[in-house]
């Protein structure tokens, strides 16, 4: 038989909003590093000679950063909506920033 103990009064539930904010910053940092790693791989593969090659590297690098940024936003939004919908507190009052 499964027994569920009541939560200890001194144990506070995890602040998932704060953790999500930390996740947003750390994942943004990883994303920047991954984009730069991709550019480094491009430079090592294509070389750095010629305007056209340099232009391709810049365009691919920025496109990768843009695409990764959009994926990052979609993930953050999905997590944000999940945390927000599971919050049991009441809502109301006038809007703020």
């Amino acid at each position, binding site marked *: 038989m499964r027994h569920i103990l009541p939560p200890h009064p001194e144990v506070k539930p995890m602040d998932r*909003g704060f953790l999500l904010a930390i996740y*947003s910053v750390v994942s943004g940092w990883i994303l920047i*590093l991954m984009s730069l790693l991709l*550019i*480094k791989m491009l430079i090592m593969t294509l070389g750095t000679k010629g305007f056209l090659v*340099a232009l391709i590297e*810049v365009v691919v690098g920025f496109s990768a950063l843009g695409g990764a940024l959009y994926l990052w936003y979609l993930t953050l939004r999905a997590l944000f909506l999940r945390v927000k919908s599971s919050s049991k507190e009441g*809502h109301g009052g*006038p809007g703020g*920033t």
Partner: protein
Amino acid sequence: MLIGWLLIKMLAWISLTALAMMLSLIASELFHRALIPRLVSGGHVSEDVHKPNRPKVPEPAGPAVYLSFAVSMMIISQLAGSSVLEGVVASTGLAFLIGLVDDLSPLGPKTKPLLLILPALLLAVSGGIVPRPYLPILGRARLYYTYWVVLATMFTVFSNGVNMMDALNGMMPSSVFASTLPLLPVLIALGSYTSLLSLVALYGSLIPYYVRNRYPAEVFGGDSNSLFVGAALASIAAMSNTEAFFAISLLPFMVSGFSILASIGGLLERRDIRTRPVTVEGGIIRANPNREAPISLIAILTSSEGKTESRIVKEVVIISLISGVLSCATFFLLTPR
């Protein structure tokens, strides 16, 4: 002989940095004392919407913060013989003026970011910028063509990011301190002393403002303050070629700015966003339960539970400090030099 000369040079820079800090701190304190009563008597006040009784708070304090920075920088540029500092004063001054116009008569949501390219152009023509940024993993890059686009983008993104962060009492100055303090060793390691003393002078200008802007706020900075601070950070990053590291340390500012832009689907003025990211009830701030509400850093922090203004600001400071430390670690551990 050489060590002695280097020691004297270092002592001179330390003295100049300390002097820049003291000058901007004293000037900012005096300007705040002179400006705030005039703002009140002139009826330049705004409602603090996050307080239950919605008190009226004088705004904008931007002139006191910018002018103290400018005075300090002009004196130091004469002592140090560095003309690039005059470029920084001019460039940040233009950003301050754009913000002041916006404070007096709101600019359009697309006009403001476009206008913020002008301070970048002014800094570029001042002649002190070398388009060779240090990049994590890659090392020192040569971006002779694309750099100027990056510089203009950086001014717009930093200024708007700082502007978005100026939402709660004391949040903007405290998060600027927390995210950029870990970058001081980076500037010292690179020997970028002009950037170092500009950053320290910015701290000096912001301290008297922070004392008055922290909870419960006695003054608001306005766009003139936040756009100036954003432009100052962009200028310091460009002077020291540490653009990428400033971008990493200001990640919480970007998260807020980018999430709002992406979730509302374009450029809109804060006052024109119909569904607010958060709701306020009895001094407790919560993420707006509406699924269509924009995502901001404050909404993320309050997504699981309602929080007081002071608690949110403390958490933003912790997050800013984390991003600052990440940036510093990226420079020392992941950047070839």
